[in-house]
């Protein structure tokens, strides 16, 4: 399995709709990364911020945005595309599960003293069942990488457990769809590759039409 097979040309080819897509995540999440480049971050700084608890809310809001995206995709885009057979039943089931993730993350964010980000609007370049499933496969695999990339930074053990529980479900979705469309069920081989926030944004950002 080469690195290039992990890329998602169908996402990269997407036209960015509107000019405000950067607004949503850039504001809350990316700003932090820009302020502190990886090279400037020492373990001390990391520990200090991690122990403040604020970091967890940012991670949760980032996850919430991805779950908004996934739930919207399965619950709304699936209808406009029109699915049938196993694709239809999987999309319905996964959509409900993504929506449950949305609800749980919103509750957790509030519980942690934060404010959940608003649901942005999305633009999905799927026109039929085949392109829908291909995009679903990409989104789920990005979701797995996003959670795996962020989870080690979570300082609260309960939040980490919740993230672990959710990412396992995302991985199960990714494999089920992979099996359905004859794509690798383990596209990263034995070790799922964690994705940095900027890599996730590069993949998922083009689907966000306005903040």
């Amino acid at each position: 399995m080469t690195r290039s097979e992990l890329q998602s040309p169908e996402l990269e080819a997407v036209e960015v709709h509107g000019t405000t897509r950067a607004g949503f995540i850039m504001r809350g999440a990316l700003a932090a990364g820009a302020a502190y480049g990886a090279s400037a971050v020492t373990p001390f700084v990391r520990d200090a911020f991690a122990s403040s608890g604020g970091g967890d809310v940012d991670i949760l809001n980032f996850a919430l945005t991805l779950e908004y995206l996934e739930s919207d995709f399965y619950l709304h885009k699936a209808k406009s595309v029109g699915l049938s057979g196993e694709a239809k039943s999987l999309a319905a089931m996964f959509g409900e599960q993504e929506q449950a993730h949305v609800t749980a993350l919103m509750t957790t964010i509030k519980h942690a003293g934060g404010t959940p980000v608003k649901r942005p609007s999305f633009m999905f370049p799927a026109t039929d069942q085949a392109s829908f499933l291909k995009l679903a496969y990409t989104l789920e695999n990005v979701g797995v990488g996003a959670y795996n990339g962020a989870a080690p930074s979570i300082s609260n053990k309960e939040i980490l457990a919740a993230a672990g529980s959710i990412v396992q479900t995302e991985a199960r979705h990714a494999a089920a769809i992979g099996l359905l469309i004859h794509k690798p069920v383990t596209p990263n081989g034995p070790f799922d590759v964690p994705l940095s926030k900027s890599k996730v944004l590069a993949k998922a950002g083009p689907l966000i039409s306005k903040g």
Partner: protein
Amino acid sequence: MTDRIDPVESTNDGVVMELARDDLERKRFLKMAGRGMGAGAAATALGAFIAACGGSSSSSSSSSAPAATGTASTSSSASASASASGGNDLPIVNYALTLEYLEAQFYDEVAKSGLFHGATLATLKRFGTEEHAHVAALKGVADKLGTPAAKPMGKFPLHSASQVAKLAATVENLGASAYLGQAGNIKSKEILAAALAIHTVEARHASTLNSMLKMTPTPDGAFARPMTMAQVLKVVKPFIA
């Protein structure tokens, strides 16, 4: 609230930076991993890991720095070095290693059983190869932390294709639950990152096998359930000779 580090980048600063920085350690990892999947694949996997982690930022101070800094940061440096050593994680790593040994043996026997052919056999072989890579990686980590668990001898009932497929699904669902059950107990962020990377692969295996058996890929619904070590070992015990 505005001055916050990017959580992903900051983790990554720690996670595989260690491997990237410590050439000996990296060679060791590659050697260990190489037994399971071939050096080329191992290098690719590790390279991807490091790349994803943004670990090339060599100017960042590493976890070896705490000793040289002031007293004001005593507590955080103590926790940072404890975290880097991951000494307390050895029992968890050995627990995972034991499960992976059993999974790898199971798939080896399944592949030789003659019960499967074609695409199904290819899938099962692929999963076996991946479990072997997990064994190699975990053994490498356990070696670093102390003494790796001894390789258990598995005994698996292999009667029919459908029975074996169900057993495989059971094993993988159990494995996913076992990793999830330990996530909150792992001290070292590096080891946590590795466990997460394996956890979702077990989940992928479980989902695939469930789907092939016409069972739901998400038996726990939206939120996968963890299992404790005691719960897992109880299920596993009959499969240890």
